[in-house]
């Protein structure tokens, strides 16, 4: 089962932000989308989630999303936006329930608290969402998304987590916590697609990486084949050197090595 995008084109006010991008993500894998600012990462996620009008085709678990109703999509995939503003003073637990009600976990009363416990915020269940810090709010939204697709696989079909910069306002411990949650979801059979800024976290947690630059797909593959000096330097427009010290087999990126 997979999430496959073919020849995705998106225009904003005459400018073609995505110029025919193909992407194939497999359930069981964490697929990261990386690239410089303005390369079209979030726009691609917008097309994958049917949020933005686009050309091209997106198939989710074999079905064209263009023919699916919002509630059918909501039963198969959950979406974490970059930032969330909540209009009314809902409590944290009530926010997580909004996600749960959209999925197939129905009214199981234990799911919202378990989802909050997973992001380490069960003790904040009674607080008003607006009183949380930025990082706490982002983790509550992740709990909401998890409650929506609580079982990574249901009736043999994988569910999907689509995350737009899930760690952007988190400290390093919580960055690792959130990426670990994404990885566990994938290991349990679900699919994860995450727009990422941090190349080191991408190297640590992604099974597949797609590199976007100027609205096109520059490279796709495993972190070892894609996170290379040549590809990254070309994508980001500055000289980057990828290093992998002998004991760990995971690449890491040294900004110190950048030169104009």
């Amino acid at each position: 089962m997979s999430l496959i995008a073919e020849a995705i084109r998106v225009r904003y006010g005459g400018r073609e932000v995505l110029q025919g991008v193909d992407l194939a993500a497999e359930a069981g894998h964490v697929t990261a989308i990386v690239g410089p600012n303005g390369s079209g990462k979030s726009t691609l996620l917008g097309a994958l989630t049917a949020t933005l009008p686009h050309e091209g085709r997106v198939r989710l678990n074999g079905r064209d999303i263009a023919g699916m109703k919002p509630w059918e999509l909501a039963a198969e995939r959950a979406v974490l936006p970059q930032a969330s503003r909540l209009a009314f003073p809902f409590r944290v637990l009530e926010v997580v329930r909004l996600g749960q009600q959209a999925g197939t976990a129905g009214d199981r009363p234990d799911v919202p608290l378990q989802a909050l416990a997973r992001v380490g915020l069960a003790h904040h269940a009674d607080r008003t969402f607006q009183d949380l810090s930025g990082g706490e709010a982002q983790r509550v939204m992740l709990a909401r998304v998890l409650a929506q697709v609580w079982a990574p696989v249901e009736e043999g079909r994988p569910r999907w987590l689509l995350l737009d910069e899930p760690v952007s306002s988190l400290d390093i411990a919580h960055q690792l916590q959130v990426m670990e949650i994404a990885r566990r979801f994938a290991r349990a059979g679900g699919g994860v697609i995450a727009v990422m800024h941090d190349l080191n976290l991408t190297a640590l947690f992604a099974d597949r990486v797609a590199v976007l630059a100027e609205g096109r797909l520059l490279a796709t593959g495993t972190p070892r084949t894609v996170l290379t000096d040549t590809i990254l330097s070309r994508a980001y427009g500055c000289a980057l050197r990828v290093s992998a010290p002998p004991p760990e087999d995971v690449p890491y990126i040294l900004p110190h090595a950048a030169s104009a």
Partner: protein
Amino acid sequence: MAALTDVQAPPRDRLSRARALHWALAAALVLASAASLEVGATDVRLSALLAKLVQGEALGQMERIVLLDIRLPRLAMGLLVGAALAVSGAVMQGLFRNPLADPGIVGVGAGAGLGAILAIVLGGLLPVWARDLAGNQLVPVAAFLGGWGSTLLLYRVATRGGRTSVATMLLAGIALGALAGALSGILVYIADDQQLRDLTFWGLGSLAGASWAKVAAAGPMIALALGAAVLLGRALNGLALGEATAAHIGIDVQRMKAVAILAVAGATGAAVAVSGGIGFVGIVVPHLLRLASGPDHRTLLPNAALLGATLLILADVIARVVIAPAELPIGIVTAILGAPVFLWILLRRRGLVDG
């Protein structure tokens, strides 16, 4: 990582409190209704009539007329109008994701006002058959058509390529309101003294003209609109997270907007048509309920119907007794009671208003 002990204390649940509030508000509505039937300009008392009925005595002709043809339709209209205004307010606030929005935003008020003024000032120019057809319902019919028409116009302006922009609707509503105000100004300028007096009283709002005919005209429209609005609870909860996220959690956002806007136009249009301009119910009621039992629209919308009906019936009782045997326009009562509450909201929510 959170310890498992975190999970053991169940958090307080506002949903059960909101459901308890449901029954308390229903009881309050019954009491307010009894009060509304009890008091009035004539010395007919519901309590005395009930005592008479219990003793097996028949009601007098006058008592029958006062109770069944004056106070009961007035009660029914207060109930319909109060519920319509409060639920419309709650729906608009949910749709615009702003606790200070009211149905006026979608142009109902301005359009209905223009319709009413047209009928009052230029109604005399209509051919005789048309005036006979409308009878004394010319003003409410014109107000309803004006309110409904302006909302449809705004909806068309704000919808491009199958998507409705609530921000465009807000701005276009301001423009349309100014235009309707200017046209109304022209009509006020050419109106004679009696018409000016009618206009002023229409603008202040009143249930004094209540009749079974008006209840029969406005009732089905309001009931239908409120029935549709109350079903929007889950969708409006989702919209609190933003339009994109609402769609991601399975809500057909465009259909929800269309239903919300048409329901509000129908309910408010009918309410304003039969009762004139009654302010503050739509803002104060949802806010009080959010303070009491949280913002969940699934309970907020039905509770708003109950509280709005109760408060409007009580305001009507006050309007009838403070200067009896004359009566105050009800819009004055709701504004005197509602404006301080509105200011209190602004002070509490200053951060939200200042952005």
